[in-house]
């Protein structure tokens, strides 16, 4: 299941594909044979990329609540 998840995550997949070029073994391109729906691809983009702003910014929110003096005008 996890590998299916990863192969639908195109941004990560293309990074791996492109990094293969460092060793001269590049070039499978977009995996047209690994069929998926746009909705799943889009959802996985959401999970792997949009989670970054969500997690980091919620962390930042709790951090600034613990240190309110850091959010005051200097």
């Amino acid at each position, binding site marked *: 299941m996890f590998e299916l998840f990863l192969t639908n995550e*195109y*941004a990560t*997949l*293309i*990074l791996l*594909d*492109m*990094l*293969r*070029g*460092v060793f001269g073994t*590049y*070039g*499978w*391109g*977009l*995996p*047209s*044979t*690994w*069929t*998926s*729906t*746009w*909705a*799943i*691809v*889009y959802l996985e*983009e*959401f999970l792997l*990329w*949009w989670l*970054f*702003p*969500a997690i*980091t*910014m*919620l962390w*930042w*929110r709790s951090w*600034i*609540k613990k240190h*309110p003096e*850091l*959010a*005051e*005008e*200097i």
Partner: protein
Amino acid sequence: MDEAAFATGKLIEGIIIVIWIALILGIGLWSRKKVKASGDLLVGGRAIPVWMLGMWSAGASVSAWAFFGLPGGIYAAGAWQHWAICTPMIAGFPLTVIFLGRWMRVSAKKYNLMTMPDFLGEVYGGKLIRIFAAIGIVIACIFYATAQFKAIGVLIGTLLNIPYQPAAALGIAISAVYVLLGGFIAGAIINSLNVSMMIIASLLAVGLGYTWTGGYGKMLATISAATGGTTWLNNDAALGGFAWFFWISWALLLSSFGLVGQPAIVQKLYGVKKPSTLWMWGLLGGIIFGVTCPAYCYLGVVTKYLAVTDPTVAPAITGLGLGADGVIAWLTVYKLGVEAPILGGLLIAGVIGAAWSTIDGFIMMGGAAIVRDIINKCFRPNWTDKQLLKYLRIAMLVVGIIMAIETLFPSEIITWLAAIGWAQFAATLAPALLLATTWRGVTKWGGTAGVAVGTLVCAFLTLVYRIPLGTKTFITTFYLDAGAWGMILGFLTIIIVSLVTKKERGPLYYDIHKDVPKPQ
């Protein structure tokens, strides 16, 4: 084509756009009374709700590049551009908040910060860093702004059957009017509406693509089976084996960390009402960008699918005489104009809104770079605020007129014009901004040299080496590495020069790095 249906469809789309323009101008007129000082014009009196600024910054980052240029670039050169350029940019928003945002906002009142060169000048000290940064901003503005008004000109021109130049000038004039009247306050309100329209248009685009193609896998398999389809899908074939370098230079440097150096996006942080709410800006910016940009990239892939399944599509796009820029114009005006004009009108409004959200920032930024960063801060420090406000408005008008004149020159395809502008901003500003808050070893001359090197390396590689290759070669060997080299050498220069020069710094440096004793 059913001519009667096409004429009716164009009329409906035209009415939607005219209503949209009237609404935008009305808000500009309404907010003019709220602008009483230079701070109101440039940063909205630092009292704008954070959600509005998050939406505006997201719109400025998406810009006409993602809504217009990128689908065209994807159609012409390959789907890999979506995943390698667009998606990693989502990470740029939280990175900006973490590394830079808090210091920009909490020091804004004390040092009266309104522009990015302001921040650099107060951290590193000296006039030269402001001047080099302003020069880099002006160079980047020319490329980036050209991409925006080209998109507006192509769309309004195709819709109203008027030539590209007057259509683009009309688009710029509308933006200039609301910026000159209502400045930052008008921009914040108008762009909340623009971005709402962008989100609606993006969701519609995804649904539309699904109904036309019958799913993503089927679409890719069909393209792959068509002549030349495999090359189009294979990023390495498109990039001549240098795809990995492209990913590193764009995804890892320019798209993500490079966002820190985009004044049209990041300068909005000065206007946030409460510094503790900055997290909302990072969250909204990242998520709105993540919803909207991939959806329009998807339309580029969908158009490719339509072109390989229907032999009339590619000649129809080519027939517009706009090259790859004709993709969204054909899709919205010619295809949707007949099949679903209301949807077409909303998609066009989304693209124009995205372009405006960036053009207004450039008009403000270009005017501020000349009048505030160079003349006021370096040569005329005794101006009253009233004088500054007057000259800012004049400079913004001049910048708007220069942009309108730029439409007279033929420009190349939108995706790489905008990409060059983005890369120039990143190379000029990102290294000095990131190191200002994270490394206490920076010095006045390190920062100044770093900004100068970043600006010059990127401008030199772009103007002397990359552009003469021409669009065709440029796209097929689309490294766009000029900005990445500028950024890397900018970082190295700041570090090396800072290590060997006298420890002179600006006053804000000692607020950020409290453990470093202030010289007496």
